[in-house]
């Protein structure tokens, strides 16, 4: 089933993130993808995430596509100007990649090429609109296209952000610009999630709530303290005292999904290189 079709069903949607390798060895990534075949509805392939240079999302999406897996190509605004972005959107379409997740992208100063030129020629709202413009058969210069693409567009939102009103205004703006689905930042906190769901329940798009696999208490502490992600102390305690922190993290992720399941349209799992454990998480979901 294509992701567009999946979005139209009532099914509980599961997507997960895959990280391209730093280098050309695709074997580990493809093995992980294979383990997830039939278990998830969409494979997000990140675009030089954390501004760390890696193999490109487009190439991997194309390979997944050929293997009968449904890729969601992540596209950041960080590195390419409008010419390159439009061109890559057309390239994706030509390779049969329809699903694009558009995001601003982490700043180069946070990555491993800190001296790179910072681009951000378009912002995510503008890039969504640009993709929709290409669908109408013209480009940003107003020039006619010989063959136009068709996309299923996604965007991101942070339900845990401090200014929820501002995030909600962004959601509306992104929907207006063409977003059909949202994948969110990781959510660990029930109350904030409920507030977010309540405020977004009438919107005509699907929200796939971010679920993060915490592999140990150090990661959890880092996310809480450095990234300001609201992780309940109880989880950190469980991870710190567990005989196998990873197993505990898997349990926590499964609990989070089980608790969300009745309320949300789907989840987006971020396992940060531990994608092989996603089936275990899903097996534990009640």
């Amino acid at each position: 089933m294509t992701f567009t079709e999946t979005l139209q069903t009532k099914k509980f949607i599961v997507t997960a993130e895959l990280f391209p390798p730093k280098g050309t060895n695709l074997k580990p990534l493809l093995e992980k993808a294979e383990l997830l075949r039939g278990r998830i509805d969409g494979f997000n392939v990140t675009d030089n995430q954390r501004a760390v240079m890696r193999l490109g999302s487009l190439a991997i999406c194309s390979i997944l596509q050929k293997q009968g897996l449904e890729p969601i190509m992540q596209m950041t605004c960080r590195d390419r100007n409008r010419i390159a972005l439009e061109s890559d959107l057309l390239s994706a379409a030509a390779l049969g990649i329809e699903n694009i997740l558009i995001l601003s992208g982490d700043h180069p100063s946070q990555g491993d090429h800190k001296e790179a030129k910072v681009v951000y020629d378009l912002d995510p709202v503008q890039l969504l609109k640009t993709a929709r413009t290409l669908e109408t058969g013209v480009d940003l210069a107003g020039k006619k296209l010989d063959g136009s693409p068709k996309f299923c567009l996604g965007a991101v939102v942070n339900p845990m952000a401090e200014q929820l009103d501002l995030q909600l205004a962004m959601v509306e703006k992104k929907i207006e610009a063409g977003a059909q689905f949202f994948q969110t930042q990781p959510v660990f906190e029930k109350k904030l999630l409920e507030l977010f769901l309540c405020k977004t329940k009438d919107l005509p798009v699907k929200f796939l709530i971010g679920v993060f696999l915490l592999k140990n208490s150090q990661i959890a502490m880092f996310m809480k303290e450095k990234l300001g992600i609201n992780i309940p102390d109880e989880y950190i305690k469980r991870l710190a005292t567990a005989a196998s922190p990873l197993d505990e993290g898997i349990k926590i992720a499964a609990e989070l999904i089980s608790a969300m399941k009745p309320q949300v349209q789907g989840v987006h799992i971020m396992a940060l290189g531990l994608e092989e454990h996603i089936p275990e998480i899903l097996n534990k979901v009640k």
Partner: protein
Amino acid sequence: MIITKQKELDKILEKLKNRKNIFIVGCAACATKCATGGEDQVQALSVEMSKHGLAILGSMVLDTPCDIRVVKKDLARDDKAQKAESLVLLTCGAGVQAISSVLEDKELVPALDTMFLGTIERLGNFHQFCSLCGDCIIDETGGICPVTRCAKSLVNGPCGGALKGKCEVNSENDCAWITIYDKLKKNKTGIKKYHNIKNNAAVNKPQKVKTR
């Protein structure tokens, strides 16, 4: 105002190895306010260079070294400047080039790095609030520039990564969009309004203005 900072002394000295007859030029405008190229800095550099055995022929703080007319009138006619072999310039890049266009056969050693167009909070405390995009939109963003003050130049709203009101990219900076949001709170359409893609051709380099 143009914000500059002085290059490391070693780097300046390296360029001046074995030179005789050095002349130092400062700037009475921006570089004085920045305390990078005023009378005091010209003196200080002169002392340092003498300590390193370099012969300083003279110095001059030009009113506005970025003005070719001023360079022609005040610097080009100066005897010592004419005799000098190398000129050390405590000016911004615009100043260096105004001087190089007039004193074509002198060796010029820029001693400052030119950083940005700055807003002065107090002396020694400068902010980049405008990055000269040539297509100003801040009438619609509460007078706060997202092109410059948002690390990602997002003109349609925040990335969602701000933490305690600070930017996810650099926690020393306020998130521009939270600042804008606070200013526009009463005016919700302000946040929701779509901002069009910017015309970057407005700042294709090198720019020129010729009104007469």
